[in-house]
């Protein structure tokens, strides 16, 4: 082999080794990147799952606590008040002439009133069926209650085929809607509030809109009120997308979208 050829081979071989080294380095980096991205995705999924579980547990604990308080009111305080009414009425019959019958009757009436309030409270707390009801039914009830107050006209409409939503998501959506409605009633001085729910293959969309005075959003400092940040936090917890729009004189609207993957 002549020296010229030998030189070509030598340099060629060294360069080939260098390029192979470079290619290996690049491939290693790409493989590591792929693994890292998979790991990050896995961690995110786990985090999301963990948050969802915490949320469900919170809702469950809250529900159970309320039911227990309700039962206690019904079984304990309710029973004692019933007994108190009976004693008061009995006292009235036995001592007709020695005591002021009017006063005894009013005591009995007050206890009966309290008893009625407590029963109503107890029923509200123990109504587990209501907690598990469809979002549309819960919103409809909310609309009826608000219209009874007569501050403004609240309307509700729903489209698409209703599908089952986990209790935690149901609860969160209801709380977000309640927060929006309360804010509209308290601060917006609105005449109409429109609530719409839409069920489709992509997920559930809930939109609320008022024709009130609106406000600067986001504010000059970029900060939001506690109510808004609570709504956002709740939406984040259930993996929903929340878009709030408002400007002075143009009312306020809010759209929440829960993707079907989060619901299932």
């Amino acid at each position: 082999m002549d020296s010229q050829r030998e030189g070509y081979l030598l340099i060629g071989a060294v360069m080939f080794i260098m390029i192979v080294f470079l290619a290996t380095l690049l491939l290693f980096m790409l493989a590591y990147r792929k693994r890292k991205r998979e790991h990050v995705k896995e961690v995110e999924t786990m985090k999301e799952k963990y948050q969802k579980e915490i949320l469900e547990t919170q809702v469950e604990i809250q529900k159970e606590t309320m039911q227990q308080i309700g039962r206690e009111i019904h079984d304990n305080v309710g029973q004692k008040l019933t007994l108190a009414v009976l004693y008061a009425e009995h006292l009235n019959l036995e001592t007709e002439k020695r005591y002021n019958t009017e006063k005894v009757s009013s005591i009995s009436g007050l206890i009966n009133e309290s008893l009625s309030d407590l029963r109503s409270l107890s029923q509200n707390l123990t109504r587990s069926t209501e907690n598990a009801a469809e979002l549309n039914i819960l919103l409809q009830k909310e609309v009826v209650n608000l219209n009874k107050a007569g501050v403004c006209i609240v309307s509700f409409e729903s489209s698409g085929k209703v599908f089952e939503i986990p209790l935690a998501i149901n609860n969160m959506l209801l709380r977000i809607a309640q927060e929006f409605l309360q804010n509209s009633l308290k601060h917006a001085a609105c005449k109409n509030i429109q609530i719409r729910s839409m069920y489709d293959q992509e997920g559930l969309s809930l939109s609320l809109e008022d024709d009130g005075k609106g406000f600067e959003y986001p504010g000059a400092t970029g900060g939001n009120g506690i109510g808004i940040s609570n709504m956002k936090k709740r939406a984040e917890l259930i993996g929903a997308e929340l878009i709030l729009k408002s400007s002075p004189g143009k009312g306020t609207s809010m759209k929440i979208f829960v993707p079907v993957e989060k619901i299932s």
Partner: protein
Amino acid sequence: MYLQIIWFELLAFVCSLIALPVIWKSKYLRIFPFLMLIIVAVEGYYKFFIADRWTNNAPVYNVQVPLQYVCYLLILYYSARTISLKRYSIVGLIILVVFNAITTIYFTPEKYSNVWGYYCCSIIAIMGIIIKFYEMIITTRTAKYDFLKDPFFYILFAFLFYNLVTLPYFGMANWLYRTNRLSEFKGVLTALTQLMSVTNYILYTTYSIAFIWIASARVIY
């Protein structure tokens, strides 16, 4: 073919100036325009002001090349997010300066290139870039950081490619020059010169694209 390298260097220099308002915000990227100026000044001087193509430029390159690598090590130092890379850059910089000074003054004959000094620079830079790449893939600064979307990764990769490919060239060319065998290996030398030119084109084209990318995206990682 190698006579065209200056145009690619000029393009990279101009692109670095275009990106200056953005790269000025980054401690490590702001060194690039200065680095390009060093390269363009020397190459441009020989290209446009020296009529004789065969003028010996070795003494100037013996200063310019280590200076370039000092800039690269400073870039690595300022871009470092781990203490190990910071330490490596400082130690590498000291070794580079001392080694080049000693070999140029005491061991390099007059009008000869200090190839051992170049080897030292190149090896220190290659290792530094590999450490930087490791830092890039294990980074915890943000979970969403993706080195493939960082123009700096391409700059470093092109420079690594340049160093790995040109290292054998300089070694072989120097050996042929010192042993007076240039005429015997004329074909090899021509091939190597062309290869070096191609790696230079790749290097400075990558730099130009990266600077334009930085300027248009206005994102520095």
